[in-house]
């Protein structure tokens, strides 16, 4: 089939961008969306034009590198599917496709479809971990974890950090990403000691990184390639309320000054 692509081109963060129209011919149904971009790029290079820049690595939906808004849907029209796993059998001949980058102040564009998702890393730095000095761990089976808790934690832990939730959110909020990590670690016995401090610090960093506020639209869940549920957002809120009522923030700021 033949497709018409309107791709967002932007030379760099400072430059202003715009859509450019391209035609791609002989697209096969078994090709992935990224392979279509490959073909487009081969053509562009042939004509001495700069290829479209886009992040990608594993191409099997697990590394979270790829990410672009395809016809208004982050990662495209298919549920639970990353752009790299989106296959062309879901498009039809002659279709016009608009491709644009994640749009959020916290995700500044680097070039074309490539954005800087460093904000996510900073949120993890703030508290998205369980402190274990290498070698200090107890015997693995010393602490049983109820299967149900482990399974639920795994549901949350599947997050690939792609940023589609932010891209889809009308408020450009990172709530689902943060909620997934807070829930994953908060559901496990190993995560309890830092549970209250973790949620407070991660939430603070989420604001500092410039993400918007969640007003419970649920778009993030619909866009999430790992179908992470907004129930985890409620879970984050509950943890946050508990933490605040138990006077966590002050403990946290003390902890930050290295006391306690």
């Amino acid at each position: 089939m033949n497709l018409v692509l309107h791709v967002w081109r932007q030379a760099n963060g400072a430059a202003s961008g715009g859509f450019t129209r391209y035609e791609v011919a002989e697209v096969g149904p078994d090709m992935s969306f990224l392979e279509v971009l490959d073909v487009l790029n081969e053509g562009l290079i042939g004509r001495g034009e700069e290829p479209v820049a886009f992040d990608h690595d594993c191409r099997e939906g697990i590394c979270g590198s790829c990410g672009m808004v395809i016809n208004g849907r982050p990662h495209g029209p298919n549920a639970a599917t990353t752009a790299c796993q989106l296959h062309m059998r879901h498009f039809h001949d002659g279709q016009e496709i608009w491709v644009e980058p994640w749009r959020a102040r916290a995700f500044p564009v680097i070039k074309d479809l490539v954005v800087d998702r460093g904000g996510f890393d900073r949120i993890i730095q703030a508290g998205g971990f369980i402190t274990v000095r290498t070698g200090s761990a107890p015997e693995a089976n010393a602490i049983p974890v109820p299967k149900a808790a482990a399974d639920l934690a795994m549901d949350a832990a599947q997050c690939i950090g792609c940023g589609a939730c932010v891209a889809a959110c009308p408020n450009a909020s990172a709530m689902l990403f943060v909620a997934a990590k807070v829930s994953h670690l908060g559901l496990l016995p190993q995560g309890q000691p830092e549970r209250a401090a973790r949620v407070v610090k991660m939430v603070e960093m989420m604001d500092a990184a410039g993400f918007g506020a969640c007003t419970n639209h649920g778009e993030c869940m619909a866009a999430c390639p790992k179908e992470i549920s907004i129930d985890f957002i409620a879970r984050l809120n509950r943890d946050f309320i508990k933490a605040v009522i138990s006077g966590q923030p002050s403990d946290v700021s003390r902890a930050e000054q290295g006391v306690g």
Partner: protein
Amino acid sequence: MPALPLARSLVGRKILMAVTGVILFLFVVGHLLGNLKIFQGPEHFNAYAEGLRTIGAPFFGRGQVLWVARVILLISVFTHIWAAITVTWASWKARPIGYHGLHLVETTYAARTMRWGGLIITVYVIYHLLDFTFGRVNPSYVPGDVYHNVLASFHSWSVSAGYVACLLVVGLHIYHGLWSAFQTLGLHRPPVDRWRRGLAGAIALLITAGYVAIPVAVLGGLVR
């Protein structure tokens, strides 16, 4: 007093909004129950309005308890609005460049119109106060005769129509508001998560219906 630490983060502000929202919601419910007495005729209705001012007697003076309620209400309204504005502002700043078109799939009309809803409600309440509490916009305001005042306003088609419109907005706001508050307050635990949408819808519907009934009844001559 955890309200202050809450006010620091957007998540915290959303929580304050939910709490104050629920307070406002309770007022709206109570206010409705009161207003429905209008169907029992002038005496009851005015008695109720009077009653509001004499709750707690003899321990409290006239209107004291009402004022306490009003203060709580005012604090809630301002907190709610303040949070709403700052949260909205943060979200607008969070996406400086918009999409060619973002295709929304999950969200509801109610959720998308919360902010407008809030704005309309604000305007509405101001008019409403001028109408019944201060009598400025009321065609024939008789202090103390609440029953008369309500009828006086609602006999005008345009006023009633305006009211009904605003009441629908309130209903919509409460619908998403309640559901959203479950989420914001972390009350999603099963089995709540299964029926919270329905519950919010039903409550919102009842409230709107109750309120709308009044202007309609007045115009329809049921209440005269």
